[in-house]
Protein backbone atom coordinates (compact mmCIF):
# COMPACT_ATOMS: atom_id res chain seq x y z
CA UNK A 1 0.00 0.00 0.00
CA UNK A 2 2.79 2.35 0.92
CA UNK A 3 4.43 1.61 -2.40
CA UNK A 4 1.24 2.36 -4.27
CA UNK A 5 0.98 5.69 -2.44
CA UNK A 6 4.58 6.58 -3.36
CA UNK A 7 3.93 5.83 -6.97
CA UNK A 8 0.81 7.97 -7.04
CA UNK A 9 2.61 10.94 -5.46
CA UNK A 10 5.50 10.52 -7.91
CA UNK A 11 3.03 10.78 -10.78
CA UNK A 12 1.40 13.85 -9.32
CA UNK A 13 4.75 15.59 -8.86
CA UNK A 14 5.26 15.60 -12.65
CA UNK A 15 4.70 19.07 -13.98
CA UNK A 16 1.28 18.99 -15.62
CA UNK A 17 2.38 20.42 -18.97
CA UNK A 18 5.81 18.77 -19.11
CA UNK A 19 5.03 17.07 -22.44
CA UNK A 20 4.11 20.41 -23.99
CA UNK A 21 7.33 21.91 -22.65
CA UNK A 22 9.35 19.08 -24.20
CA UNK A 23 7.63 19.65 -27.53
CA UNK A 24 8.31 23.38 -27.32
CA UNK A 25 11.99 22.81 -26.46
CA UNK A 26 12.33 20.38 -29.37
CA UNK A 27 10.85 22.73 -31.93
CA UNK A 28 12.94 25.64 -30.55
CA UNK A 29 16.05 23.53 -31.07
CA UNK A 30 14.98 22.74 -34.64
CA UNK A 31 14.24 26.40 -35.36
CA UNK A 32 17.63 27.47 -34.00
CA UNK A 33 19.35 24.85 -36.16
CA UNK A 34 17.56 26.01 -39.32
CA UNK A 35 18.30 29.64 -38.57
CA UNK A 36 22.00 29.04 -38.01
CA UNK A 37 22.17 26.86 -41.10
CA UNK A 38 20.63 29.63 -43.21
CA UNK A 39 22.99 32.19 -41.64
CA UNK A 40 26.06 30.14 -42.58
CA UNK A 41 24.97 30.02 -46.21
CA UNK A 42 24.12 33.70 -46.33
CA UNK A 43 27.41 34.72 -44.74
CA UNK A 44 29.54 32.50 -47.00
CA UNK A 45 27.76 33.46 -50.20
CA UNK A 46 27.65 37.11 -49.17
CA UNK A 47 31.39 37.09 -48.48
CA UNK A 48 32.09 35.60 -51.92
CA UNK A 49 29.88 38.12 -53.69
CA UNK A 50 31.43 40.93 -51.64
CA UNK A 51 34.95 39.79 -52.48
CA UNK A 52 34.08 39.73 -56.19
CA UNK A 53 32.59 43.19 -55.91
CA UNK A 54 35.72 44.55 -54.26
CA UNK A 55 37.93 43.33 -57.11
CA UNK A 56 36.06 45.87 -59.25
CA UNK A 57 36.49 43.57 -62.24
CA UNK A 58 32.84 42.50 -62.36
CA UNK A 59 30.43 44.42 -64.55
CA UNK A 60 26.93 44.29 -63.01
CA UNK A 61 25.41 46.17 -65.91
CA UNK A 62 26.76 43.56 -68.33
CA UNK A 63 25.26 40.79 -66.19
CA UNK A 64 21.91 42.56 -66.18
CA UNK A 65 21.96 42.91 -69.95
CA UNK A 66 22.94 39.35 -70.85
CA UNK A 67 21.66 37.19 -68.01
CA UNK A 68 18.18 36.79 -69.57
CA UNK A 69 19.71 35.51 -72.82
CA UNK A 70 21.86 32.94 -71.00
CA UNK A 71 18.94 31.90 -68.78
CA UNK A 72 16.96 31.30 -71.96
CA UNK A 73 19.24 28.31 -72.54
CA UNK A 74 17.98 26.64 -69.38
CA UNK A 75 14.81 25.62 -71.21
CA UNK A 76 16.79 23.56 -73.71
CA UNK A 77 18.92 22.11 -70.92
CA UNK A 78 15.77 20.97 -69.11
CA UNK A 79 14.27 19.57 -72.32
CA UNK A 80 17.43 17.56 -73.00
CA UNK A 81 17.55 16.24 -69.44
CA UNK A 82 13.89 15.26 -69.20
CA UNK A 83 13.92 13.54 -72.62
CA UNK A 84 17.14 11.73 -71.74
CA UNK A 85 15.91 10.54 -68.37
CA UNK A 86 12.77 9.11 -69.97
CA UNK A 87 14.82 7.23 -72.57
CA UNK A 88 17.31 6.14 -69.92
CA UNK A 89 14.56 4.82 -67.62
CA UNK A 90 12.93 2.79 -70.39
CA UNK A 91 16.27 1.38 -71.53
CA UNK A 92 17.26 0.65 -67.94
CA UNK A 93 14.05 -1.27 -67.23
CA UNK A 94 14.44 -3.38 -70.35
CA UNK A 95 18.15 -3.75 -69.62
CA UNK A 96 17.52 -4.87 -66.04
CA UNK A 97 15.04 -7.55 -67.16
CA UNK A 98 17.64 -8.69 -69.69
CA UNK A 99 20.39 -8.83 -67.07
CA UNK A 100 18.11 -10.91 -64.83
CA UNK A 101 16.82 -13.10 -67.64
CA UNK A 102 17.55 -16.80 -67.92
CA UNK A 103 17.27 -16.37 -71.69
CA UNK A 104 20.86 -16.22 -73.04
CA UNK A 105 19.92 -13.90 -75.91
CA UNK A 106 18.25 -11.33 -73.65
CA UNK A 107 21.08 -11.61 -71.13
CA UNK A 108 23.70 -11.33 -73.86
CA UNK A 109 22.19 -8.25 -75.48
CA UNK A 110 21.71 -6.48 -72.14
CA UNK A 111 25.20 -7.32 -70.91
CA UNK A 112 26.83 -6.13 -74.12
CA UNK A 113 24.87 -2.87 -73.89
CA UNK A 114 25.94 -2.22 -70.31
CA UNK A 115 29.54 -3.25 -70.88
CA UNK A 116 30.07 -1.20 -74.05
CA UNK A 117 28.21 1.94 -73.04
CA UNK A 118 29.69 2.05 -69.55
CA UNK A 119 33.11 1.25 -70.93
CA UNK A 120 33.32 4.19 -73.34
CA UNK A 121 33.31 7.91 -72.48
CA UNK A 122 30.03 9.79 -72.73
CA UNK A 123 31.81 12.50 -74.69
CA UNK A 124 33.06 10.01 -77.27
CA UNK A 125 29.55 8.61 -77.65
CA UNK A 126 28.16 12.10 -78.12
CA UNK A 127 30.59 13.22 -80.81
CA UNK A 128 30.39 9.80 -82.47
CA UNK A 129 26.63 10.13 -82.95
CA UNK A 130 26.93 13.70 -84.22
CA UNK A 131 30.14 13.60 -86.29
CA UNK A 132 30.70 9.94 -87.20
CA UNK A 133 27.22 8.62 -87.97
CA UNK A 134 26.72 10.99 -90.98
CA UNK A 135 29.49 9.00 -92.68
CA UNK A 136 27.04 6.06 -92.65
CA UNK A 137 24.33 8.32 -93.99
CA UNK A 138 22.67 8.83 -90.61
CA UNK A 139 22.42 12.50 -89.79
CA UNK A 140 21.20 13.37 -86.31
CA UNK A 141 20.73 17.04 -85.33
CA UNK A 142 22.65 18.35 -82.32
CA UNK A 143 19.91 18.36 -79.68
CA UNK A 144 18.68 14.91 -80.71
CA UNK A 145 22.26 13.60 -80.67
CA UNK A 146 22.64 14.87 -77.13
CA UNK A 147 19.40 13.30 -75.99
CA UNK A 148 20.28 9.93 -77.54
CA UNK A 149 23.82 9.93 -76.14
CA UNK A 150 22.73 10.91 -72.62
CA UNK A 151 19.76 8.51 -72.68
CA UNK A 152 21.87 5.56 -73.82
CA UNK A 153 24.70 6.34 -71.46
CA UNK A 154 22.62 6.84 -68.33
CA UNK A 155 20.38 3.94 -69.35
CA UNK A 156 23.39 1.65 -69.02
CA UNK A 157 24.25 2.88 -65.54
CA UNK A 158 20.62 2.76 -64.47
CA UNK A 159 20.29 -0.79 -65.81
CA UNK A 160 22.59 -1.91 -63.05
CA UNK A 161 20.72 0.19 -60.49
CA UNK A 162 17.38 -1.33 -61.48
CA UNK A 163 18.86 -4.82 -61.51
CA UNK A 164 20.22 -4.35 -57.99
CA UNK A 165 16.90 -2.84 -56.87
CA UNK A 166 14.88 -5.77 -58.18
CA UNK A 167 17.26 -8.20 -56.51
CA UNK A 168 17.03 -6.26 -53.25
CA UNK A 169 13.32 -7.05 -52.84
CA UNK A 170 13.23 -9.90 -50.30
CA UNK A 171 12.64 -13.32 -51.93
CA UNK A 172 9.78 -13.93 -49.51
CA UNK A 173 7.77 -11.29 -51.38
CA UNK A 174 7.95 -13.28 -54.61
CA UNK A 175 7.17 -16.50 -52.79
CA UNK A 176 4.12 -15.00 -51.13
CA UNK A 177 2.83 -13.64 -54.44
CA UNK A 178 3.46 -16.94 -56.23
CA UNK A 179 1.78 -18.92 -53.50
CA UNK A 180 -1.34 -16.81 -54.13
CA UNK A 181 -1.34 -18.14 -57.70
CA UNK A 182 -0.01 -14.97 -59.32
CA UNK A 183 1.71 -15.57 -62.66
CA UNK A 184 5.30 -14.33 -62.94
CA UNK A 185 4.44 -11.19 -64.92
CA UNK A 186 1.96 -10.09 -62.30
CA UNK A 187 4.41 -10.88 -59.49
CA UNK A 188 6.96 -8.60 -61.17
CA UNK A 189 4.56 -5.78 -62.04
CA UNK A 190 2.49 -5.62 -58.86
CA UNK A 191 4.79 -6.86 -56.12
CA UNK A 192 8.48 -6.66 -57.06
CA UNK A 193 8.72 -3.53 -59.23
CA UNK A 194 6.85 -1.13 -56.92
CA UNK A 195 9.18 -2.11 -54.08
CA UNK A 196 12.26 -2.05 -56.30
CA UNK A 197 11.46 1.46 -57.53
CA UNK A 198 11.27 2.70 -53.97
CA UNK A 199 14.69 1.23 -53.32
CA UNK A 200 16.31 2.76 -56.41
CA UNK A 201 14.87 6.28 -56.30
CA UNK A 202 17.76 7.83 -54.34
CA UNK A 203 20.29 6.31 -56.76
CA UNK A 204 18.26 7.33 -59.82
CA UNK A 205 17.96 10.85 -58.41
CA UNK A 206 21.71 10.95 -58.01
CA UNK A 207 22.10 9.95 -61.66
CA UNK A 208 19.64 12.59 -62.78
CA UNK A 209 21.58 15.29 -60.97
CA UNK A 210 24.75 14.09 -62.69
CA UNK A 211 22.91 14.13 -66.02
CA UNK A 212 21.78 17.72 -65.58
CA UNK A 213 25.43 18.69 -65.37
CA UNK A 214 26.63 16.31 -68.09
CA UNK A 215 24.08 17.82 -70.47
CA UNK A 216 26.50 20.75 -70.73
CA UNK A 217 28.69 18.53 -72.96
CA UNK A 218 26.08 18.93 -75.69
CA UNK A 219 27.38 22.49 -76.08
CA UNK A 220 30.34 21.05 -77.96
CA UNK A 221 28.22 19.89 -80.90
CA UNK A 222 26.41 23.23 -81.07
CA UNK A 223 23.16 22.74 -79.19
CA UNK A 224 22.36 26.21 -77.93
CA UNK A 225 21.74 25.33 -74.33
CA UNK A 226 22.89 27.00 -71.15
CA UNK A 227 26.64 26.57 -71.43
CA UNK A 228 26.72 27.27 -75.17
CA UNK A 229 25.00 30.62 -74.64
CA UNK A 230 27.22 31.52 -71.68
CA UNK A 231 30.37 30.83 -73.67
CA UNK A 232 29.11 32.56 -76.81
CA UNK A 233 28.22 35.76 -74.98
CA UNK A 234 31.30 35.65 -72.77
CA UNK A 235 33.79 35.18 -75.58
CA UNK A 236 32.27 37.91 -77.70
CA UNK A 237 32.58 40.44 -74.88
CA UNK A 238 35.66 39.03 -73.16
CA UNK A 239 33.56 38.56 -70.06
CA UNK A 240 33.47 34.77 -69.59
CA UNK A 241 33.89 35.16 -65.81
CA UNK A 242 30.41 36.62 -65.47
CA UNK A 243 28.72 34.42 -68.05
CA UNK A 244 30.20 31.12 -66.85
CA UNK A 245 29.37 32.06 -63.26
CA UNK A 246 25.77 32.58 -64.31
CA UNK A 247 25.71 29.23 -66.11
CA UNK A 248 27.18 27.47 -63.07
CA UNK A 249 24.59 29.06 -60.79
CA UNK A 250 21.77 27.99 -63.07
CA UNK A 251 22.98 24.36 -63.10
CA UNK A 252 23.21 24.52 -59.34
CA UNK A 253 19.69 25.89 -58.97
CA UNK A 254 18.32 23.25 -61.37
CA UNK A 255 19.81 20.47 -59.25
CA UNK A 256 18.41 22.03 -56.08
CA UNK A 257 14.93 22.21 -57.57
CA UNK A 258 15.19 18.64 -58.77
CA UNK A 259 16.44 17.40 -55.40
CA UNK A 260 13.46 19.04 -53.75
CA UNK A 261 10.99 17.14 -55.95
CA UNK A 262 12.93 13.92 -55.48
CA UNK A 263 12.71 14.30 -51.73
CA UNK A 264 8.96 14.84 -51.95
CA UNK A 265 8.57 11.76 -54.11
CA UNK A 266 10.62 9.68 -51.68
CA UNK A 267 8.47 10.84 -48.81
CA UNK A 268 5.28 10.05 -50.71
CA UNK A 269 6.49 6.55 -51.56
CA UNK A 270 7.55 6.02 -47.96
CA UNK A 271 4.04 6.66 -46.66
CA UNK A 272 3.58 2.94 -46.02
CA UNK A 273 6.45 3.05 -43.53
CA UNK A 274 4.83 5.49 -41.19
Amino acid at each position, binding site marked *: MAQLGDRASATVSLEPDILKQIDAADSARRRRFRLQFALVWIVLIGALVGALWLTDRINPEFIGRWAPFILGGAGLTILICVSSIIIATILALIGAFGRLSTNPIAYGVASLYVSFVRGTPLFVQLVFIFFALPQMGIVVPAVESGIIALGFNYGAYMTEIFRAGIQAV*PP*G*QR*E*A*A*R*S*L*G*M*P*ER*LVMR*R*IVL*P*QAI*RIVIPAIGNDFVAMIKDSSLVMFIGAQELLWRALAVGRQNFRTFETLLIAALVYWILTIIFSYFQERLERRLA*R*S*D*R
Partner: protein
Amino acid sequence: MTDRPPSYPLPSMPGHLGEVIVRARGLHKYFGQLHVLDGVDLEVWQREAVMIVGRSGSGKTTLLRCINFLEEPTAGTIEVDGYRVEADPTGHRGRGHAEEIRQIRLRAGMVFQDFNLFPHMNVLQNCIEAPTRVKRMAPDAAVELAERYLAKVGLMDKRDEYPSRLSGGQKQRVAIARALCMEPKVLMFDEPTSALDPMLIGEVLNVMEELAHEGTTMIVVTHEMHFAREAADRIVFMEDGQIIEQGAPEELLNAPRDPRTQQFLSRFLESGGGGGAD
Protein backbone atom coordinates in the same frame (compact mmCIF):
# COMPACT_ATOMS: atom_id res chain seq x y z
CA MET B 1 -11.14 -42.15 -55.80
CA THR B 2 -9.62 -45.34 -54.44
CA ASP B 3 -6.42 -45.35 -52.47
CA ARG B 4 -3.66 -47.83 -52.24
CA PRO B 5 -3.13 -48.70 -48.60
CA PRO B 6 -0.31 -46.52 -47.31
CA SER B 7 3.03 -48.19 -46.80
CA TYR B 8 3.38 -46.94 -43.22
CA PRO B 9 1.30 -47.68 -40.15
CA LEU B 10 -1.60 -45.25 -39.92
CA PRO B 11 -3.45 -46.06 -36.69
CA SER B 12 -6.54 -43.97 -37.20
CA MET B 13 -7.08 -43.47 -40.86
CA PRO B 14 -9.63 -40.66 -40.97
CA GLY B 15 -11.33 -42.06 -44.03
CA HIS B 16 -14.72 -40.92 -42.80
CA LEU B 17 -13.72 -37.31 -43.32
CA GLY B 18 -14.35 -37.46 -47.05
CA GLU B 19 -12.07 -37.35 -50.02
CA VAL B 20 -8.33 -36.84 -50.16
CA ILE B 21 -7.42 -33.19 -50.78
CA VAL B 22 -3.64 -33.46 -50.80
CA ARG B 23 -1.72 -36.48 -51.92
CA ALA B 24 2.06 -36.49 -52.09
CA ARG B 25 3.60 -39.65 -53.52
CA GLY B 26 7.21 -40.72 -53.44
CA LEU B 27 8.57 -37.23 -52.74
CA HIS B 28 12.31 -36.83 -52.84
CA LYS B 29 14.24 -33.60 -52.54
CA TYR B 30 17.96 -33.11 -52.80
CA PHE B 31 19.73 -29.84 -52.08
CA GLY B 32 22.99 -30.62 -53.85
CA GLN B 33 24.12 -33.88 -52.25
CA LEU B 34 21.90 -33.37 -49.22
CA HIS B 35 18.91 -35.73 -49.22
CA VAL B 36 16.30 -33.61 -47.46
CA LEU B 37 13.16 -35.55 -48.40
CA ASP B 38 13.60 -39.28 -48.66
CA GLY B 39 10.52 -40.81 -50.17
CA VAL B 40 7.61 -39.11 -48.43
CA ASP B 41 4.01 -40.21 -48.94
CA LEU B 42 1.34 -38.06 -47.38
CA GLU B 43 -2.43 -37.90 -47.74
CA VAL B 44 -4.56 -35.19 -46.22
CA TRP B 45 -8.29 -35.69 -46.12
CA GLN B 46 -10.93 -33.03 -46.48
CA ARG B 47 -11.61 -31.12 -43.24
CA GLU B 48 -8.54 -32.62 -41.65
CA ALA B 49 -5.95 -30.63 -39.69
CA VAL B 50 -2.56 -32.29 -39.98
CA MET B 51 0.35 -31.05 -37.90
CA ILE B 52 3.87 -31.95 -38.94
CA VAL B 53 6.39 -32.03 -36.11
CA GLY B 54 10.05 -32.95 -35.86
CA ARG B 55 13.48 -31.54 -35.25
CA SER B 56 14.91 -28.67 -37.27
CA GLY B 57 16.36 -30.13 -40.43
CA SER B 58 14.01 -33.11 -40.46
CA GLY B 59 12.53 -31.92 -43.77
CA LYS B 60 9.11 -30.75 -42.60
CA THR B 61 9.33 -27.25 -44.06
CA THR B 62 10.77 -28.64 -47.30
CA LEU B 63 7.84 -31.05 -47.51
CA LEU B 64 5.42 -28.14 -47.24
CA ARG B 65 7.33 -26.09 -49.81
CA CYS B 66 7.43 -29.03 -52.21
CA ILE B 67 3.66 -29.45 -52.01
CA ASN B 68 3.11 -26.02 -53.59
CA PHE B 69 6.33 -26.18 -55.61
CA LEU B 70 8.13 -23.30 -53.93
CA GLU B 71 10.77 -26.01 -54.07
CA GLU B 72 10.73 -28.26 -57.11
CA PRO B 73 10.79 -31.86 -55.84
CA THR B 74 13.61 -34.01 -57.20
CA ALA B 75 11.08 -36.79 -57.72
CA GLY B 76 7.48 -37.55 -56.90
CA THR B 77 3.90 -36.51 -57.56
CA ILE B 78 1.73 -33.89 -55.94
CA GLU B 79 -2.01 -33.92 -56.19
CA VAL B 80 -4.22 -31.21 -54.74
CA ASP B 81 -7.99 -31.46 -55.07
CA GLY B 82 -7.66 -33.89 -57.95
CA TYR B 83 -5.16 -31.76 -59.86
CA ARG B 84 -2.03 -33.81 -60.28
CA VAL B 85 1.49 -32.64 -61.12
CA GLU B 86 4.62 -34.68 -61.62
CA ALA B 87 7.95 -33.26 -60.44
CA ASP B 88 10.00 -31.68 -63.22
CA PRO B 89 13.46 -31.38 -61.65
CA THR B 90 15.29 -30.78 -64.94
CA GLY B 91 12.85 -28.13 -66.14
CA HIS B 92 12.09 -29.93 -69.42
CA ARG B 93 8.41 -29.09 -69.33
CA GLY B 94 9.07 -25.34 -69.10
CA ARG B 95 6.04 -23.08 -69.33
CA GLY B 96 3.54 -25.93 -69.21
CA HIS B 97 4.92 -26.95 -65.85
CA ALA B 98 4.81 -23.35 -64.60
CA GLU B 99 1.09 -23.25 -65.35
CA GLU B 100 0.56 -26.63 -63.63
CA ILE B 101 2.31 -25.28 -60.57
CA ARG B 102 0.09 -22.21 -60.60
CA GLN B 103 -2.96 -24.44 -60.64
CA ILE B 104 -1.64 -26.28 -57.57
CA ARG B 105 -0.98 -22.97 -55.80
CA LEU B 106 -4.49 -21.74 -56.50
CA ARG B 107 -5.70 -24.78 -54.57
CA ALA B 108 -3.10 -24.75 -51.78
CA GLY B 109 -2.73 -21.50 -49.82
CA MET B 110 0.36 -20.78 -47.78
CA VAL B 111 1.13 -18.84 -44.61
CA PHE B 112 4.81 -18.13 -44.02
CA GLN B 113 6.98 -17.92 -40.96
CA ASP B 114 7.81 -14.25 -41.58
CA PHE B 115 4.38 -13.22 -42.90
CA ASN B 116 5.59 -11.75 -46.20
CA LEU B 117 2.82 -9.17 -46.36
CA PHE B 118 3.22 -6.75 -49.25
CA PRO B 119 4.61 -3.63 -47.52
CA HIS B 120 3.48 -1.20 -50.22
CA MET B 121 -0.16 -2.19 -49.87
CA ASN B 122 -2.48 -1.71 -46.94
CA VAL B 123 -4.20 -4.61 -45.23
CA LEU B 124 -7.26 -4.59 -47.48
CA GLN B 125 -5.16 -4.26 -50.64
CA ASN B 126 -3.03 -7.20 -49.49
CA CYS B 127 -6.20 -9.26 -49.23
CA ILE B 128 -7.91 -8.29 -52.50
CA GLU B 129 -4.81 -8.20 -54.75
CA ALA B 130 -4.87 -11.86 -55.77
CA PRO B 131 -8.67 -12.33 -55.86
CA THR B 132 -9.12 -9.34 -58.19
CA ARG B 133 -6.07 -9.85 -60.39
CA VAL B 134 -5.75 -13.61 -60.46
CA LYS B 135 -9.36 -14.73 -60.11
CA ARG B 136 -10.68 -11.58 -61.80
CA MET B 137 -13.19 -11.14 -59.03
CA ALA B 138 -15.18 -7.88 -59.10
CA PRO B 139 -13.61 -5.36 -56.68
CA ASP B 140 -16.82 -5.03 -54.63
CA ALA B 141 -17.08 -8.76 -54.18
CA ALA B 142 -13.38 -9.03 -53.32
CA VAL B 143 -13.65 -6.30 -50.69
CA GLU B 144 -16.69 -7.98 -49.18
CA LEU B 145 -14.83 -11.30 -49.07
CA ALA B 146 -11.73 -9.68 -47.57
CA GLU B 147 -13.77 -7.92 -44.91
CA ARG B 148 -15.41 -11.19 -43.96
CA TYR B 149 -12.04 -12.89 -43.46
CA LEU B 150 -10.51 -9.86 -41.75
CA ALA B 151 -13.41 -9.93 -39.32
CA LYS B 152 -12.79 -13.63 -38.82
CA VAL B 153 -9.17 -13.00 -37.77
CA GLY B 154 -10.35 -10.03 -35.69
CA LEU B 155 -8.70 -7.26 -37.70
CA MET B 156 -11.54 -5.43 -39.42
CA ASP B 157 -10.44 -2.22 -37.68
CA LYS B 158 -6.99 -2.50 -39.30
CA ARG B 159 -8.18 -2.78 -42.89
CA ASP B 160 -6.68 0.58 -43.94
CA GLU B 161 -3.38 0.25 -42.07
CA TYR B 162 -0.08 -0.53 -43.72
CA PRO B 163 1.75 -3.65 -42.52
CA SER B 164 4.52 -1.60 -40.89
CA ARG B 165 1.96 -0.38 -38.37
CA LEU B 166 0.95 -3.86 -37.24
CA SER B 167 2.37 -6.13 -34.54
CA GLY B 168 3.78 -9.50 -35.57
CA GLY B 169 0.67 -11.30 -34.43
CA GLN B 170 -1.55 -8.93 -36.39
CA LYS B 171 0.63 -9.33 -39.47
CA GLN B 172 0.36 -13.08 -39.31
CA ARG B 173 -3.42 -12.87 -38.90
CA VAL B 174 -3.60 -10.63 -41.99
CA ALA B 175 -1.46 -13.18 -43.84
CA ILE B 176 -3.99 -15.87 -42.87
CA ALA B 177 -6.88 -13.70 -44.08
CA ARG B 178 -5.02 -12.98 -47.31
CA ALA B 179 -4.54 -16.70 -47.95
CA LEU B 180 -8.18 -17.43 -47.07
CA CYS B 181 -9.38 -14.82 -49.57
CA MET B 182 -8.25 -17.12 -52.38
CA GLU B 183 -10.51 -19.80 -50.86
CA PRO B 184 -7.95 -22.57 -51.20
CA LYS B 185 -8.81 -26.24 -50.77
CA VAL B 186 -6.04 -26.59 -48.22
CA LEU B 187 -4.22 -24.01 -46.14
CA MET B 188 -0.58 -24.66 -45.33
CA PHE B 189 1.27 -23.01 -42.44
CA ASP B 190 5.06 -22.98 -42.28
CA GLU B 191 6.00 -22.45 -38.61
CA PRO B 192 3.54 -19.56 -38.39
CA THR B 193 4.47 -18.56 -34.84
CA SER B 194 8.24 -19.05 -34.90
CA ALA B 195 8.98 -15.40 -35.69
CA LEU B 196 6.62 -14.04 -33.04
CA ASP B 197 7.14 -12.71 -29.52
CA PRO B 198 5.84 -15.26 -27.00
CA MET B 199 3.13 -12.78 -26.01
CA LEU B 200 1.74 -12.70 -29.56
CA ILE B 201 1.74 -16.42 -30.34
CA GLY B 202 -1.61 -17.05 -28.66
CA GLU B 203 -3.68 -14.76 -30.89
CA VAL B 204 -2.40 -16.51 -34.02
CA LEU B 205 -2.87 -20.00 -32.61
CA ASN B 206 -6.42 -19.10 -31.55
CA VAL B 207 -7.31 -18.15 -35.10
CA MET B 208 -5.75 -21.35 -36.41
CA GLU B 209 -7.53 -23.47 -33.84
CA GLU B 210 -10.83 -21.90 -34.80
CA LEU B 211 -10.15 -22.63 -38.46
CA ALA B 212 -9.30 -26.24 -37.60
CA HIS B 213 -12.50 -26.69 -35.61
CA GLU B 214 -14.53 -25.24 -38.46
CA GLY B 215 -13.16 -27.96 -40.68
CA THR B 216 -10.63 -26.02 -42.73
CA THR B 217 -8.32 -28.52 -44.38
CA MET B 218 -4.86 -27.58 -43.14
CA ILE B 219 -1.28 -28.74 -42.93
CA VAL B 220 0.76 -27.06 -40.23
CA VAL B 221 4.48 -27.31 -39.62
CA THR B 222 4.87 -26.34 -35.99
CA HIS B 223 6.92 -26.62 -32.83
CA GLU B 224 3.91 -25.80 -30.65
CA MET B 225 3.18 -29.26 -29.25
CA HIS B 226 0.43 -28.07 -26.95
CA PHE B 227 -1.35 -26.46 -29.87
CA ALA B 228 -0.89 -29.58 -31.97
CA ARG B 229 -2.46 -31.69 -29.23
CA GLU B 230 -5.48 -29.37 -29.05
CA ALA B 231 -6.10 -28.62 -32.69
CA ALA B 232 -4.75 -31.51 -34.74
CA ASP B 233 -6.74 -34.37 -36.16
CA ARG B 234 -3.48 -36.08 -36.93
CA ILE B 235 0.13 -35.48 -36.01
CA VAL B 236 2.91 -36.50 -38.37
CA PHE B 237 6.40 -36.98 -36.97
CA MET B 238 9.30 -36.55 -39.39
CA GLU B 239 12.98 -37.27 -39.09
CA ASP B 240 15.79 -37.47 -41.63
CA GLY B 241 13.44 -36.62 -44.47
CA GLN B 242 11.00 -39.43 -43.74
CA ILE B 243 7.67 -39.75 -42.03
CA ILE B 244 8.51 -41.92 -39.04
CA GLU B 245 5.15 -42.17 -37.36
CA GLN B 246 1.73 -40.60 -37.50
CA GLY B 247 -1.58 -40.82 -35.76
CA ALA B 248 -4.22 -39.09 -33.71
CA PRO B 249 -2.73 -36.67 -31.15
CA GLU B 250 -3.52 -38.82 -28.10
CA GLU B 251 -2.03 -41.92 -29.67
CA LEU B 252 1.10 -40.29 -31.00
CA LEU B 253 1.83 -38.07 -28.03
CA ASN B 254 0.89 -40.54 -25.28
CA ALA B 255 2.04 -43.81 -26.81
CA PRO B 256 4.64 -43.16 -29.50
CA ARG B 257 5.91 -46.46 -30.89
CA ASP B 258 9.08 -45.51 -32.65
CA PRO B 259 12.10 -44.82 -30.40
CA ARG B 260 12.91 -41.71 -32.42
CA THR B 261 9.45 -40.31 -31.78
CA GLN B 262 9.78 -41.19 -28.11
CA GLN B 263 13.11 -39.43 -27.90
CA PHE B 264 11.77 -36.32 -29.65
CA LEU B 265 8.70 -36.15 -27.44
CA SER B 266 10.60 -36.75 -24.22
CA ARG B 267 12.07 -33.27 -24.54
CA PHE B 268 8.61 -31.78 -24.46
CA LEU B 269 7.37 -34.07 -21.71
CA GLU B 270 10.21 -32.89 -19.50
CA SER B 271 9.08 -29.33 -19.96
CA GLY B 272 5.54 -30.01 -18.77
CA GLY B 273 3.38 -32.75 -20.28
CA GLY B 274 3.71 -31.87 -23.91
CA GLY B 275 2.76 -28.27 -23.36
CA GLY B 276 4.24 -25.10 -24.73
CA ALA B 277 7.99 -24.91 -25.06
CA ASP B 278 9.76 -24.90 -28.36
